[in-house]
């Protein structure tokens, strides 16, 4: 940290606004990144981080405002123009070709030649020198597809640097990395910093940001909140700025008290092949349990174990007090356990098929006699779900792709309700859905719990978890770290303040717990080595 001797501005963004249709994704955002600085960019979901990065690397043209790179205004907005100006962004391994070697990837389209022919051994020597200079330990002759996530990432960054990138944008670079790889990445970034590279570092892990960044800029709801030295931003201040004052919308969802029934789903010391590790958890009927944690904390892996998608390596899962052993999703569905998956478009719906075809898909056997689907029954089942979930669609025969995101998600939920499950696992059920539909989905989750289902809900939006759940379990690094009854996150001293304010206070408390879990998780994995 400390003050920089060289403090030329590498990139300056001024008054950037961006509208998508009626939505103001960015509103007059501006900040500067200095050469030789690691600049953290922070904000909650929907704060505008990825939009501003996409403006910077030329994917989106700003509606207003301008960008200067090393004092020169960026006049055209295209990925090529940004790259030519020296802005490189990690595309999460998207710029590497898995079937080629590291050296071949680094010098792709700029191959070293001798006598008109490509000389791979020369490229490997050059790459080795480059890696040695940057103190990166990657074998230039290794096939990229065989590398671990950390080495792939380093390779990708080295490739960008070798193309004279002066501004490096890293979007959640540590998510896929093991702890030792994160340390290696940081050493490498400090090295680049010394060479005057400006680094924009986006992460949800505040302990990491405190370790690596020099300054931070925080965005909220598309607006610039603050840019300050990292020394002036303790973690709880950061969280306060990120969370801000919650706008209402979710807070008006009334949480009826759950009537807790018998245990619907119980996990005893369950581990997957990689993640999660040693999870013990029970969910009563009528109860919504939330899973909080960051990307890579093992929430989705846990959901996949429960739904029979990934195999359980050890431990025991009980559904309605009976031990189960799911080999495939069909087994789980038959036992009454269903998953509303994270990637709606690919895992949840078949977009080009009709609402009916999607809704009846899981319960096809019940609607079939002598091999033929009973069309009348199929219509009845679909209409019942359209009515129950108030799915807005022109007709049951319209393709699901014609529906809005929120209604598509309701189709997924309707598909499962049609087989009348006992346990529902919802993985980011409101991702990519507008705020109105979000509260509708949350209400629906409460209603389903009230009708006696046991529900496990994953969400990265803490305010959602706080609104929907009776208990919230915090995960990090594949383990559970804390289990809060919802009420424990409310401050009894603030009983009389308004709902939005209480939600905000609870969100800060939960956020702090997630960061603590993260720190504890890293300590644990360090201890393993």
């Amino acid at each position, binding site marked *: 940290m400390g003050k920089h001797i060289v403090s030329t501005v590498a990139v300056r963004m001024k008054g950037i606004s961006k509208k998508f249709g009626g939505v103001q994704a960015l509103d007059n955002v501006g900040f500067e990144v200095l050469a030789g600085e690691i600049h953290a960019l922070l904000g909650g979901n929907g704060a505008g981080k990825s939009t501003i990065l996409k403006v910077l690397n030329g994917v989106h043209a700003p509606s207003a405002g301008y960008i200067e790179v090393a004092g020169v205004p960026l006049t055209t907005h295209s990925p090529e123009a940004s790259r030519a100006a020296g802005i490189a962004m990690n595309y999460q391994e998207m*710029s590497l070709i898995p079937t080629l070697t590291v050296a071949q990837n680094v010098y792709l389209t700029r191959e070293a030649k001798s006598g008109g022919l490509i000389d791979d051994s020369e490229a490997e020597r050059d790459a080795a020198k480059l890696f040695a200079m940057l103190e990166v330990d990657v074998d230039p002759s290794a096939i990229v597809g065989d590398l671990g996530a950390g080495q792939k990432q380093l390779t990708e960054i080295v490739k960008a640097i070798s193309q004279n990138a002066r501004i490096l944008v890293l979007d959640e670079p540590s998510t896929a990395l093991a702890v030792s790889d994160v340390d290696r990445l940081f050493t490498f970034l400090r090295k680049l910093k010394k060479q005057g590279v400006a680094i924009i570092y986006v992460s949800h892990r505040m302990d990491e940001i405190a370790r690596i960044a020099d300054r931070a800029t925080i965005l909220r709801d598309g607006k610039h909140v603050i840019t300050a030295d990292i020394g002036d931003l303790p973690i709880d201040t950061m969280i306060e700025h990120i969370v801000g004052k919650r706008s209402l919308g979710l807070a008006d969802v009334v949480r009826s008290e759950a009537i807790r029934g018998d245990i619907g789903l119980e996990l005893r010391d369950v581990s997957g092949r990689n993640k999660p590790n040693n999870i013990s958890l029970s969910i009563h009927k009528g109860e919504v349990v939330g899973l909080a944690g960051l990307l890579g904390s093992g929430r989705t892996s846990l959901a996949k174990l429960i739904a029979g998608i990934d195999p359980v390596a050890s431990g025991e899962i009980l559904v309605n007090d009976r031990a189960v052993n799911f080999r495939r999703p069909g087994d789980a569905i038959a036992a009454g356990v269903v998953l509303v998956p994270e990637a709606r478009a690919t895992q949840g719906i078949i977009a080009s098929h009709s609402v009916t075809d999607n809704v009846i898909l899981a319960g096809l056997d019940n609607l079939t006699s002598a091999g033929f689907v009973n069309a009348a029954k199929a219509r009845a089942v679909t209409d019942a779900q359209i009515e129950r979930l108030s799915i807005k669609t022109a007709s049951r025969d319209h393709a699901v792709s014609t529906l809005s995101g929120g209604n598509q998600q309701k189709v997924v939920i309707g598909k499962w309700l049609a087989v009348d499950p006992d346990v529902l696992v919802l993985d980011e059920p409101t991702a990519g859905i507008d705020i109105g539909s979000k509260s509708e989905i949350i209400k629906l989750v409460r209603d389903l719990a009230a009708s006696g289902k046991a529900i496990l809900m994953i969400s990265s939006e803490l305010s959602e978890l706080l609104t929907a759940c009776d208990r919230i379990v915090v995960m990090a690094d594949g383990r559970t770290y804390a289990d809060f009854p919802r009420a424990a996150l409310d401050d009894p001293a603030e009983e009389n303040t308004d709902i939005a304010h209480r939600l905000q206070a609870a969100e800060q408390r939960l956020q702090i717990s997630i960061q603590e879990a993260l720190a504890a998780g890293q300590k644990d994995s360090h201890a393993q080595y």
Partner: protein
Amino acid sequence: MPNTDTNQLPGVLHAFLRDWRQNIIYIGFIAIFLIFALTLNDRGFLNPNNLLNIVRQTAMIAVMAIAMTFVLSAGEIDLSVGAVAGLASVTVALAVSFAGPFAGIIAGLATGIAVGVFNGWLTTKIGIPSFLTTLAMMGIAKGLAMWVSGTAAVPILSQGYIWWFGGGSIGPIPVLLFWILILGAVGHVVLRRTGFGRRVLATGGGEQAASYSGINTAKIKFRVLVISSTAAALAGMFYAGRLQSGRFQLGEGDELSVIAAAVLGGTSLFGGKGTVIGTLVGAMMIGLINNGLILMGLEFSQQLIARGGIIILAVALSQKRA
């Protein structure tokens, strides 16, 4: 990513096992050769004439398979090669009889280039997957060949043409062997050591990453399809020379042997991985199997079954397990 081996074998053993799978084609080739040499020696398998015949019979497959290696490496496929070979054999024969051998060569190559440009245009500009483009082209090329030739064989009388393209020998060595060696060497160097070859492998290995790296992937796909059709036309010219006539049936069904040869050799059907040398050995292995099965005295029906089984076995052994 599937490649995170958690329970790694000791390094050397692991490397050997991996190489064993990668090199199965060479091991398999030698194994089959030895088996045939031991069991079929009394039926003349090792007779030099028999071995050179294998080369003559597989040359056309080999030439097409060299080009197919590029197509598959770029993540595309060309099902029209067999039919294009038949069409080219007819256009060559007609041009030779009307205007002489030189015109024949031009006509044959022009046929291949024209088909390739059309395939490439449909695939990259109109956006029809190459599987469908070339499936349709298979029928079109065969229909054209039947129409132009009136479904009759078109004889070639030019001895010069016949010597150069398929019929001739230098001493005991067939001219076709030289063609294979030259085309194989060129193909190998182009795929391994030129910017074009690297771009082909990159396009098939990760199209998005390739285009983010500044590669015009549509142009690469266009070019490999042109190369493939041109090679198919060349194979048709060899058929015409060897059989001293052009016929629409020549090359019929070859597309499957060609793809099998490339895949047996270690080229990935999913793109990004290809080896011309492996392809040549794969083609020779198919020729070897055909020859051995005939010498064993199997009926044609039995040969088909045995050949299919051997190919499945070889490809199954070469698959990397998760």
